């Protein structure tokens, strides 16, 4: 494949990028005024960061990416037109057999401690994650990479186990796998709590449970784009508190998923709301190994009884999009079983025996509400649903140890949903938590994983989503849609991915 400085991927990754583009363009501030330098941006985060070391910090959520993205950087970035753009890597080339990617790195980039950014750092980062002894959670997302090899100081080669068109999305993500940390700081055992990267902001202080403070990097390689002198990330877990803090002017920008707050913010002229569609969705698991859910008739009866539209309205106040699949792009007809109570009753009658099911759900108000909605819907269709509220960690344990019948879950937003789809669908995958086994699905999964071009990969992902809808071992619901609410004088919002606003590019308008 020829070298591309800009590699246009029309269909190579399944993120809500197409949707993200549309939303970002629709909502982005047109014709930005000249950025104003200086000042402090205060961001309200939902959770504290667990840590910045891939070996210890788990995986990033939105909060983690919003902080880490200011300090560390990925090799590529994705622009609003869905092109991969140079970032720490300036060019990339795939070998003819698809088993190797060679990347040229940007010269003159330095870490915050003054050391040079080189190919050995990239290789160290990825090889460390790939090493099973490190037990890095991010490894699960890049297992198709065999290793990373240093060619010269500014050239690194990634060797793959098989052709993999999820490679570019994997290295472009602002997550544990994509963001490159300082190897020296990691070796000193300090990266987790005192991160060093090449990013536009330098870590200053982390007061656990309270705030993380970063200062502008005066030697940043692209410093003209950076405006605020300081960013203060405040940890505000309670969504009401977070929203009140914004309204009171204590913070400049927050992320929220609370329908009431979003609707209130949309009517409030004193704040600005940005909405961004993403990939991923809610998921409802139907354990195909537990009778009577081992019957496709029963699973389909459940699917037709469920009503995603009603759930979106009641639980989310219509702040989420309808999801026929989690890919965030147009797949055409994916045989989504839209709510049809008559059909559900027909299938229950066809099954011919009493249907008694159990659903585990979290003890949160939302979890309970979801359980009650489903209980009512299934009752109408002639099925009995017993609710079993459990703690979040118990829910996860029961799903993984196959001690559940039905449960809520999610498909996380990602630049490429392929790995998750594979994990959930391939019969030998340890993440096949619905225990649904199908030779056809296995063939699709393996074909998707090793697809020779991005278009085929996406096509097969769509087909997998369709087969899931037909098999009804999982129900997609509530596509990810992110809401950033901010003070109206904060400018520079650009289209973002995976719910993570690029706060490091923003500025405060004068006046």
């Amino acid at each position: 494949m020829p070298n591309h400085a800009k590699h246009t991927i029309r269909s190579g990754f399944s993120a809500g990028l197409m949707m993200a583009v549309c939303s970002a363009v629709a909502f982005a501030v047109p014709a930005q005024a000249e950025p104003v330098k200086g000042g402090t941006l205060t961001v309200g985060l939902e959770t504290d960061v667990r840590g910045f070391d891939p070996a210890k910090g788990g995986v990033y959520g939105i909060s983690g990416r919003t902080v880490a993205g200011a300090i560390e950087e990925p090799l590529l970035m994705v622009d609003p037109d869905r092109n991969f753009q140079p970032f720490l890597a300036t060019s990339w080339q795939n070998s003819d057999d698809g088993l190797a990617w060679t990347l040229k790195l940007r010269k003159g980039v330095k870490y915050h401690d003054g050391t040079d950014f080189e190919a050995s750092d990239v290789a160290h980062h990825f090889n460390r994650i790939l090493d099973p002894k490190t037990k890095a959670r991010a490894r699960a997302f890049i297992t198709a990479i065999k290793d990373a090899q240093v060619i010269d100081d500014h050239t690194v080669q990634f060797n793959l186990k098989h052709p993999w068109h999820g490679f570019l999305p994997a290295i472009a993500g602002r997550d544990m796998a994509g963001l490159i940390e300082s190897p020296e700081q990691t070796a000193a055992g300090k990266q987790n709590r005192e991160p060093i990267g090449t990013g536009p902001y330098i870590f200053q202080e982390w007061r656990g449970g309270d705030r993380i403070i970063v200062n502008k990097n005066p030697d940043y390689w692209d410093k003209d784009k950076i405006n605020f002198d300081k960013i203060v990330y405040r940890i505000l877990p309670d969504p009401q508190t977070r929203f009140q803090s914004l309204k009171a002017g204590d913070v400049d920008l927050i992320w929220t998923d609370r329908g009431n707050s979003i609707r209130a913010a949309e009517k409030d002229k004193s704040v600005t709301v940005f909405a961004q569609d993403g990939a991923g969705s809610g998921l409802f698991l139907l354990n195909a190994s537990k009778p009577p859910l081992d019957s496709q008739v029963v699973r389909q009866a459940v699917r037709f009884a469920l009503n995603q539209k009603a759930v979106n309205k009641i639980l989310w106040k219509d702040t989420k999009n309808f999801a026929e699949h989690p890919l965030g792009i147009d797949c055409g007809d994916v045989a989504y079983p839209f709510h049809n109570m008559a059909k559900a009753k027909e299938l229950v009658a066809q099954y011919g025996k009493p249907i008694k099911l159990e659903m585990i759900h979290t003890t949160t108000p939302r979890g309970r509400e979801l359980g009650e909605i489903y209980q009512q819907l299934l009752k109408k269709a002639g099925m009995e649903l017993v609710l079993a509220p459990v703690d979040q960690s118990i829910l996860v344990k029961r799903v993984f140890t196959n001690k559940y019948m039905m449960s809520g879950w999610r498909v996380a937003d990602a630049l490429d949903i392929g790995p998750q789809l594979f994990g959930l669908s391939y019969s030998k995958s340890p993440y096949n938590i619905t225990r649904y086994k199908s030779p056809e699905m296995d063939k699709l999964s393996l074909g998707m994983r090793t697809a020779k071009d991005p278009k085929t990969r996406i096509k097969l992902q769509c087909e997998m989503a369709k087969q899931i809808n037909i098999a009804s071992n999982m129900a997609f619901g509530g596509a990810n849609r992110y809401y950033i609410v901010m003070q109206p004088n904060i400018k520079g919002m650009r289209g973002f991915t995976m719910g993570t606003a690029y706060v490091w590019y923003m500025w405060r308008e004068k006046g």
Partner: protein
Amino acid sequence: MRYLVGRFGHLITVLFLVTVLTFLLVNVLPGDIAYDIAGLDASEAEVQAIREDLGLERPFVIRYFDWLSGVLVGDWGISYRTGEPVTEAILTRFPVSLELMIVTQLIAVLLAVPLGVISALRANSKVDRVVTVTGFFFLSVPAFMMAIILIYIFGLWLNWLPVTGYESISEGLWTNVRTFILPALSIALAEWTLLTRVLRADMIGVLQEDYISMARAKGMPMARILWVHAMRPSSFSLITLLGLQVGNLIGGSIIIESIFALPGVGRLLITAIYTRDFMVIQGCVTFIALGYVVINFGVDMCYALLDPRVRTARAHG
């Protein structure tokens, strides 16, 4: 001295029992931190690896004594979730809880003492009834509700005070204190009522004593009688209650810390409970128990200061 040794022994016994009970309860709770650390996308093998890494497979007794031996040398373990040393996690957050505690009690005492004295002096009068009714009104409003009301009035409507967050004293004294006004008021507006009631009850009794009547007969000013002669013997219940309230606030202001996003010990504890971060739970509970016992020890010492008869009785064993 014998008294002090006895009290110290009592302190150690209580602490030991609290730590054993907590360790036991936390370990029998359903839930598994390994799953929380591993996340939704982890396999069972990864979860098991985390459990082995954290030593969760070892017997409960071995884990307890392992932890206890560390505590005795100042090593309270590491947070399973963040890798932060537990002592560091608690000690960085304790000043916030301590400051909240102090400001809250200061407000409560500043309200309770004068109102308690007035109520006692004018027992069953209109003033007394107004104080009582007002007090019960504030007592009946839960702290979280009071917090929301105060946020709305002073934070959003008047915009006088910050709604959330903590600013350290290095940012400026007033900047620091103003972050505690609303949280402290949320709690103090209920607490002052209890303090007022006990002070009122004790003082009414004291004001009926013969020596008070004598002082009045001798023409001593009322203010002097109240604040010099009546206040001290009326303070025992007040101080006892104050001690209990202070101890309660060390980790008990969880809701207020959550609403106002104060990074105190209470918030640390509740996060640890949700995530089954055993080491942090254990550390927080031990710390809170220690605080409670120390504070009540201090209350006992106050009795001796206030009442010389207590000192004499103790001296004679």
